[in-house]
């Protein structure tokens, strides 16, 4: 409570309430609850066969009820005719007409047949219908008993079924591992591309040039990600700009199929996430005392050793943050693989999307999503370990 009092003293009551409410809503509403709900969903499953059976039985029972209703209506009409005949040969057409009026789609031929029939025939007809109703009712009772069993079987249950599904589904498992591997690759390519840019921006570029470069890096991000990705599609597709140029120059005989495999996706993602790698690294290198670089140089170090021993160790937290962000974004990307990916380069996010939206199986979708989340967290921990940084370094 001392901490709260300290807060109140420093920021006042309103501000303290705002901060605590904001933090609470953020932590519980944005982080804890959704994850818990998803975890719960992912551990819940219902036997799909039993569910199908339930639906089937219910449909059958519904059909039987319709039959009973029809038969009862027919009996009522036949009885009307019968009592009319017994009352003294009333106009048979009146009853028939009424039936037609009441139900224009009811078979008039049947009514005419009945009109022509003798009372004995009508009675026999009624009995047949009554027997049929009794049979249907018996059937419904049997169905209800069966339904209770099936419903019990279709009850949602807790279990690892959804996770087992991922392990057993060869295709989805392959996509999962490919997504992780390709995201690692995107992260690595981004790091290799961005470290020199970040170093140049922070330490080598004269002020104006650095500002221009920074602007050049940021401006593409004013354009929607989808549009940017389609721009890459225009460049990389079979009839795209690059292929046209290569064909025209005669370098290749037929278009290169960039989009087969993950090449185009990796290129597109590297481009899409460059800023998320450049800025954390830039920020850390920017705080490096330039004298340290000069001191290393003065002591005889060639450029690569200066980077290896002085700049990179200093930039480690930034590199870790950049790698974590890029990896998370790449692994969780949906638009880029959807647009740039060929038929063989499906991303795991697409599998998750399909499970939710097309399979309508929230349990399975949650299990996939949760697996991806846990993998990403493991990746973060591995990066922090690899770069020997802790959360405080990253928060800086």
């Amino acid at each position, binding site marked *: 409570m001392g901490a709260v009092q300290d807060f109140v003293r420093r920021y006042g009551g309103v501000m303290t309430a705002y901060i605590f409410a904001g933090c609470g809503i953020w932590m519980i509403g944005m982080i804890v609850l959704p994850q818990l709900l998803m975890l719960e969903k992912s551990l819940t499953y219902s036997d799909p066969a039993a569910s199908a059976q339930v639906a089937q039985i219910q449909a059958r029972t519904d059909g039987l009820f319709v039959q009973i209703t029809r038969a009862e209506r027919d009996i009522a009409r036949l009885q009307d005719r019968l009592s009319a005949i017994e009352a003294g040969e009333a106009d048979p057409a009146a009853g028939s007409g009424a039936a037609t009026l009441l139900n224009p789609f009811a078979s008039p031929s049947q009514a005419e047949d009945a009109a022509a029939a003798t009372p004995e025939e009508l009675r026999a007809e009624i009995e047949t219908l009554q027997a049929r109703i009794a049979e249907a009712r018996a059937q419904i009772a049997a169905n209800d008993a069966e339904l209770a069993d099936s419903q019990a079987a279709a009850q949602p249950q807790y279990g690892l079924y959804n996770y087992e599904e991922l392990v057993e589904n060869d295709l989805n498992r392959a996509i999962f591992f490919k997504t992780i591997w390709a995201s690692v690759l995107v992260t690595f390519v981004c790091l290799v591309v961005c470290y020199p840019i970040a170093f140049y921006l922070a330490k080598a570029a004269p002020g104006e040039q650095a500002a221009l470069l920074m602007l050049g890096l940021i401006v593409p991000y004013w354009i929607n990600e989808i549009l940017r990705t389609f721009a890459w599609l225009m460049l990389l597709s079979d009839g795209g700009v690059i292929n046209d140029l290569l064909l025209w120059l005669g370098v290749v005989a037929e278009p290169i199929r960039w989009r087969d495999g993950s090449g185009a996706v990796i290129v597109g993602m590297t481009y899409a996430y460059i800023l998320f790698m450049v800025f954390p690294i830039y920020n850390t290198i920017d705080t490096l005392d330039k*004298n340290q670089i*000069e001191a290393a140089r003065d002591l005889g170090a060639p450029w690569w*050793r200066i980077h290896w021993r002085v700049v990179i160790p200093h930039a480690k937290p930034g590199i870790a943050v950049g790698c974590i962000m890029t990896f998370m974004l790449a692994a969780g990307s949906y638009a880029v693989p959807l647009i740039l990916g060929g038929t063989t380069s499906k991303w795991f996010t697409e599998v998750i999307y399909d499970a939710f939206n097309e399979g309508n199986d929230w349990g399975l979708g949650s299990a996939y999503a949760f697996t991806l989340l846990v993998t990403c967290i493991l990746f973060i921990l591995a990066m922090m370990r690899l770069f020997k940084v802790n959360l405080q370094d990253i928060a800086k």
Partner: protein
Amino acid sequence: MGMDVELDRVTMRFGDFTAVRNADLTIRSGEFFSFLGPSGCGKTTILRMVSGFIEPSEGFVRIGGRDMAGLGPNKRPTALIFQNLALFPLMKVWENIAFGLEVRGIGKAARRKRAEELLDLIALTDQADKLVTELSGGQRQRVATARALAVEPEVLLLDEPLSALDLKLRQHMRAELRAIQKKTGVTFIYITHDQGEALTMSDRIGVMSQGVIEQVGAPEEVYSRPHTAFVATFVGENNPFPGRVDEAREGYAVLETSHGRLRAVNREGLRAGDEASIFVRPERCQLLDGAETAGSAPDNTLLTAVERVDLEGAYVNLFVRGDQGRSLIVHLTNDRDLTGLAPGRQVTIGFAADAAVALPTPGAAAAAA
């Protein structure tokens, strides 16, 4: 043994700004040489040209007789100690010291051994495995020195490395640096704006102002026989008496000043009519008690009033002011009763012509030339 460093008509320009103008001198091998001047005078630029971080716009830098043009800082036989030391905070003390050896491909065991030898030299024997951030300011200073010496440079360049230390430590480190220099025989080029540092440590001093080396000489020479008004005022304290030369003969000049006619040594060839100033050190002024005979009275006497007395410890600063003149400082040794020097009291100040020097006023001298 260190190498000599020759600056051959070196000029450095940054755009329109001339940071160093026609620097021309030779720093002898094994010498402790200081560049002394206020910030922005170009002394750091000279250091960076010698270490190879920048190339001079004109002229040549030679080390051991070899032209250094085109050689980067990693290719020169120099090592630089930065003003902020620039130790590598993520490395241990011994790794810092051994970095230059690591660069040269020396094995880890040999590096460690050499680092420990250097740690002995700087009296930090057991600190090898600490991080530099765990050391005190003075210890870091020593580590920086050891790191620079580890690569066995012919010339060690020091860019105000003591400026971050407190006074006591600074004085201690002066002696230590001087001792290390004597022991290793490396040529030291020391940059400082602190005349105390320059005077106590150096074999020779180059006094700089606005990109120009105004005077080069041994400390006592620079202190007692300044060639320019700038040197006279920047190195140590001096009381200036601006005026005009009335007569100049036999190595002395007599100036008409606001304190009357004053006589001083004339080494710079002043002639009657020149704009000039007389400079006299506070410790060369005497407080006269009126008992002097005509024969023992100094050449110059001034009637002044006491403004205040500041106690410095071993001596006191006596501030006095003449009728129309400016405030003067007189150092009096604190070996007598000074309670009588109440503000407002009339006192007579005197100094010998041999204790004072007449120097041309900078602007006027340039105009005359």
